[in-house]
């Protein structure tokens, strides 16, 4: 259960951006890969806790879940992975170890309001 420390890092990162740009943050948009090792539900409840007493209190965390995409060496193509329990090409069955996407843990955007900076 490391979601709280992840949530705190997200808040810290967003807070820095808010300060730098003198804006109010209404929401934080996050890309969360299926292989990031972070659980969406746990992160959402930890986010609320991490925001408490910070300028981000009351802001929303909007999570975009990113599925795993692998590269199949036989098809020479990117394919979506059907199951985390079986890393093989859904088309031809070749085992695939090259991960193209799915490890993301990234703040991609902020919903801001320029007239009302967050007050601590």
């Amino acid at each position: 259960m490391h979601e709280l420390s992840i949530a705190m890092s997200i808040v810290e990162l967003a807070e820095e951006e808010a300060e730098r740009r003198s804006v109010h943050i209404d929401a934080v948009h996050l890309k969360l890969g299926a292989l990031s090792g972070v659980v969406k539900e746990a992160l959402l409840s930890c986010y609320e806790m991490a925001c408490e007493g910070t300028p981000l209190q009351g802001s929303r965390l909007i999570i975009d879940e990113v599925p795993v995409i692998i590269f199949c060496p036989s098809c020479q193509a990117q394919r979506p992975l059907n199951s985390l329990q079986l890393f093989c090409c859904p088309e031809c069955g070749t085992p695939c170890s090259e991960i193209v996407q799915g490890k993301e843990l990234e703040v991609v955007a902020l919903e801001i309001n320029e007239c009302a900076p967050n007050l601590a």
Partner: protein
Amino acid sequence: MRPEPRLIEVRKNVLKQNDVVARSLRDRFHAAGVFVVSLVSSPGSGKTAFLEKTLTLLRPNYRVAALVGDLATENDALRLARSQAPVKQITTGTLCHLEAAMVQNALEQSALEEKKWNLGQLDFLFIENVGNLVCPSSYDLGEDLRLVLISVTEGEDKPLKYPTIFNSADVAIVTKLDLAAAVDFDWQAAYANIQAVRPGMPVFKLSAKTSEGMDDYMQFLATRLRELRPASLEAIL
């Protein structure tokens, strides 16, 4: 009038801070020519026994040291010290995993001590993570090689239950092989499950107690050290 909210692009990795520290550690390790191996597993899978055996077997021919992470107690460091190798405990308190900054702090502390560690005088550094198959997967520690351990007593389907950590590791070690018959351990099934979640992953099966299978693993480590060294020696020359 309250203006409409606006979306601004940021694109920042949440674990960037850890990744930056991990990268600087990796550069430092490579400049010093030390090969760094980390160990992850669930609690009780035999990390410490396996590491104690590894240190004992390597010590006659190589200069080795170990950092060991636990929530509390120095018990593991005391056990590992029996190998006569220099060992440092990292106590994480309530934190369920090691982060790169903790490794960095431990190395800096050791530099202040009387018998300080000089990375340039080490061949292998081992980092034993906190027993946990979930959280350590997200944190790069600057290691060259991440080992994931499963003991025969845990069941053959461990890789299927924890695919993320297996996917973040480079090598799987099946431990407590001396107990395999007692628990009807199915090696073929375990191997197939590891390959299903991480195709091509090298797997060693061994017993730290009887030393069965340790030779192959020792040779593997020696080969990896030789592969690391030419590049770093060239840098010096």
